[in-house]
């Protein structure tokens, strides 16, 4: 869906985006992570043809960007670095205007029902006549999402889509996006919120100072590590029994290397070590990201 090879953008001596090889597949929710200033937004802008790359290539739907912008962009819904709307027009009028700007000759009635539907989807009142300058930050954000969704595109490129929303709003939007993904929409989600990406993504890319330092499937990241956390009131006994396989000990718990948790349990219990809990250790996204980005 999105493929880049050696995508690079320099501003003077600064390499804002440095040889990035993105690989987003159809059906993915691709979490694009990175600290503020790591080059996420510049990358997104290059994908959309707003910023010109100094080197490298980008392909969307298998077509080169920005060369094929005219055929690629109509299939993308985008939210880039905050929503934008004409302040003196209503939310509905804004959507109609953006929809008409691309020269799509849609029937009036079709357009109207599409706009009503998408406004309802993002939780805005379709009959609201107020100009968008009276909107709260959260409402503007929802309108921005509506603008991205209004043409039902197969690919969404969303930069910080839940910015400015309250917890309930964040949940609603997450559900909406996951629902669209289940229905076949590929989502490229750029964010600095680990939790948001962890909850939604099937695949993750991590950008650090312009370089893509990690790109992996979420299932691989969250795969079991071969380590087991043993909770026990007798940690000394457990260590004595499992010496050589102990990775770390904490208060009332020991982390050991073990391939089979059931076997481990039998060994502990037959040796008289009391066990209150056993769980496989999984890496959190946060650990993985920190490992990948620490110099």
């Amino acid at each position: 869906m999105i493929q880049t090879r050696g995508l690079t953008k320099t501003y003077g001596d600064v390499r804002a985006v440095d040889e990035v090889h993105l690989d987003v597949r159809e059906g993915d929710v691709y979490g694009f992570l990175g600290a503020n200033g790591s080059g996420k937004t510049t990358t997104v802008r290059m994908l959309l043809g707003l910023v010109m790359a100094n080197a490298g290539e980008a392909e969307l739907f298998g077509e080169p960007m920005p060369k094929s912008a005219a055929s690629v962009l109509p299939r993308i819904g985008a939210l880039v670095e905050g929503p934008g709307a004409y302040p003196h027009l209503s939310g509905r009028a804004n959507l109609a205007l953006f929809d008409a700007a691309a020269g799509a000759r849609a029937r009036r009635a079709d357009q109207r029902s599409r706009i009503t539907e998408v406004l309802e989807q993002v939780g805005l009142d379709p009959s609201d006549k107020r100009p968008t300058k009276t909107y709260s930050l959260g409402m503007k954000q929802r309108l921005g999402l509506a603008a991205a969704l209004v043409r039902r595109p197969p690919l969404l490129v969303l930069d910080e889509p839940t910015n400015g929303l309250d917890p309930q709003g964040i949940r609603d939007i997450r559900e909406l996006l996951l629902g669209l993904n289940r229905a076949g929409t590929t989502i490229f989600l750029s964010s600095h919120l680990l939790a948001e990406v962890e909850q939604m993504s099937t695949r993750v890319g991590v950008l650090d100072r312009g370089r893509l330092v990690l790109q992996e499937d979420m299932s691989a990241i969250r795969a079991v590590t071969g380590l087991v956390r043993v909770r026990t009131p007798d940690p000394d006994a457990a260590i004595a029994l499992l010496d050589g396989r102990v990775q770390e000990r904490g208060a009332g718990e020991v982390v050991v290397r073990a391939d089979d948790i059931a076997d481990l349990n039998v060994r502990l219990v037959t040796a008289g070590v009391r066990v209150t809990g056993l769980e496989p250790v999984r890496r959190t996204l946060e650990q993985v990201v920190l490992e990948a980005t620490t110099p």
Partner: protein
Amino acid sequence: MIRVELVKLLRRPRTWVTIVALNALPTLVAVLLAVTDIGPRPGSGPPFLSAVLTDGTLFPLAALGIVLPLFLPVAVAVVGGDSIAGEVQSDTLRYLLVRPVSRLRLLVAKLVSIVAFVVVATLVVAVVAYVEGRLFLGNAPATGVVSVSGTTLSSGEMLERTVLAFGYVVLAMLGVAAIALLLSTMTDSAVAAALGTIGFLIASTVLLGLDAAESLRPYLLTRYWLAFVDLFRDPIRWTDVVHGVLAQLAYLVVFAGAAWANFATRDINK
């Protein structure tokens, strides 16, 4: 896209506020003339103004002479300066471009909408001034109007020439529109683009009054603006009018071309 830009222009409150403001000065002049009955001496003051006390139907032309040197170009500078930079400020430029609207089509649509603004603004000035002229100022002798050269023009001829004059004024604003468009692609601030354009206007006006700048004169932006008066000579003196139109077209080609060159590959970072 052109249709969308026109809708945006016409639905924008600021467009109409600007046009109302544009009508304020001619209206004040009409009221003052009507109350005091003191006109400028013939040959001084804005063109046609000395004649309107006797013939109120000439007031649209006088109003045009009043707004043309400063008010109209300033309004065009504001609308033109806002064209691209204003989209940046409302965070809408990037959303238009990813719709996608091609950058060339966007620029053309912006230029067309600036020209449309000039057309609407001058038409409103003309209509308002005509009404004011009939209400407050002298009642025309039905026989015809004395041309600038002293011969009499029939009302048919007058109408024809008035239409020509308004067309000329619209063309005369092309240069300002193109300069404002260029500056609007160069900065993210609509105000800066408008003020930069006004800077051009002031520079042109200053150089026009400077004898040392004699050799530059034919190329100055404002040089032929008031040549629309020549359309009311008998017969029409075309030289300056044609020069004026050619000069404006040259400005349009150079500055709109530069705007395209600048905008086509510019990084949109806001």
